[in-house]
């Protein structure tokens, strides 16, 4: 049984998603919150496996909420929900610590797939997000100028990321690099972790410079 909490400021939508999840075997929605603030207070006690978080909420956004939640509960997995396929926003959420994202217009069965995947340690990445990630690691500048402890991608991780950003599917990447799809998932997971570290060190550097 995967336990889930929903954070979304649209009451009706929140309730319909909860209804849908609770009607799906193997999934249980244990709590839902209408604001980021309320979620940060309640979630540590709820201890869900996966949090579904709306990106665009009035007041504190889902992106900031994920960043704070990661501090409170490092082990929690978050799937961002968004109406817009806004790569910039999604990338920011992933950098803040989210493990995946889903468009609200996706088929509801996709939602269950995404929840299961992040719960099992997977980190799905679309080609448009991969492009953002590539750009983000490239713009950090030459090694000498990077802040200390700044993460580097291994050549293998870079290869996976590059193929993904060119639109290859997991299967095509697996064939091209002669590795299994599970290995690709592992690489992606590590890339996400490095992305989190990168955004954290960048945030610290930004803070120190102020």
């Amino acid at each position, binding site marked *: 049984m995967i336990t889930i909490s929903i954070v979304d400021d649209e009451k009706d939508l929140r309730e319909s998603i909860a209804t849908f999840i609770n009607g799906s075997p193997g999934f249980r929605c244990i709590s839902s919150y209408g604001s980021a603030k309320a979620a940060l207070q309640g979630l540590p006690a709820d201890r869900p496996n996966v949090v579904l978080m709306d990106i665009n909420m009035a007041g504190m956004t889902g992106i900031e909420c994920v960043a704070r939640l990661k501090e409170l509960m490092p082990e929690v997995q978050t799937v961002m929900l968004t109406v817009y396929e806004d790569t910039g926003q999604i990338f920011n959420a992933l950098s803040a610590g989210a493990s995946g994202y889903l468009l609200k*217009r996706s088929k509801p069965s996709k939602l269950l797939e995404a929840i299961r995947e992040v719960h099992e340690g997977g980190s799905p990445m679309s080609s448009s997000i991969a492009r953002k990630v590539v750009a983000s690691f490239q713009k950090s500048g030459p090694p000498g100028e990077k802040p200390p402890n700044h993460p580097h991608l291994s050549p293998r991780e870079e290869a996976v990321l590059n193929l993904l950003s060119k639109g290859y599917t997991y299967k095509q990447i697996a064939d091209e690099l002669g590795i299994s799809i599970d290995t690709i998932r592992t690489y992606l997971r590590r890339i996400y972790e490095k992305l989190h570290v990168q955004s954290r060190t960048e945030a610290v550097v930004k803070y120190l410079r102020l």
Partner: protein
Amino acid sequence: MGVVATQPWLRTNSLVPPTVLIEEVMVDGAPVSPAEKLNLPPGRHQIELQYTGLGTDAPERIQFRYRLIPLDADWVEAGVRRTAFYNYVPPGDYRFQVSACDRDGVWNETGASITVKVSRHFWQSWWILGPTLLGLMVSIAGAVRLVERGKLQRRLKNLEQERRLESERTRIAQDLHDQMGAKLCRISFLSEHARRNDRLPKDLQHEIGSISETSREVLHSLDEIVWAVDPQNDTLEHAASYIAQYAQDYFQMTGIECELSVPARLPAHPISSQMRHHLFLAAHEALTNILKHSGASQAKVSIHYDGSALEITASDNGAGFIPSTNHSEVSSEGRDGLRNMAQRLTDIGGRCRVESNPGQGTTIRFTVPVKRFEATLENKSYDNHIDR
């Protein structure tokens, strides 16, 4: 009865300089009666003055010099020549003076002289010329500035209007999306939940499934509209990345394997939302053709940018057809599609080419020029885009 007294010693005294006479004045080749004063109308004139010297026993030895004051700064030594020639005398008041000396070098200090006046055209008068020139310059500068300022203001105004139009479009689209989006999501989730109820008859489950599906399609269309009008997306990278992702999603679960070929990074060159919109819809049309008409099992979408033009290629391994002007073997729906694509590309100054052969698949190629400078200025107007 008078007495004539001659003074012959004076005549022989070589210390007496020769008398000088101005004999004839020619203006523009025509003689004018020599008077003390020569008045010339405005314009360019050639003046020729003939003079002579009298009173010595050796007139052939008389030397002359002359000057036109103030045109000549110094005497012009004419030697024995008895003509002074001026090709152009600017408007003004002058005095022509000619002097002579005999072989002993004694100059006739008085000489002979004539005043010359060359009139000005009315616009040559200083009191007109000065202010007129100044005025002219001021008005030219003013006119240039006005025109430039007018241009700049019009340009700024246009930009401002464009920006307002764009942010208004974005706002409307986003409002629509936010208001309807959440409700459509709700229909999607609730109907999907209802559909799973095992107690429902199969055909009802199927119908509820259609409701669910349709709500998501509407959501998708809304998303496309918002994407198309959001100025944030007006870059090459955004457009290419979106179209690539769209193609990937489009063929999911369709049985067609879609391969993408997109440069890992594209420059953030701005492109107009009009271009983006048409490119996307043309690409959408191409994908629809592959899915609905080609019968292909594989599709490939490539995006290429060479620094001046963007090329989007959609190819498949399907049935193919003979591309001709009337596309007679193509279904009417497919024909409309091809025409639409061509029209969209024409609208944005691009080209749509169709390469196909029966049994050999189809390749549709969109080429559109994208200039680096296209909207660096416009970019500034996006600074205060609506944050969503």
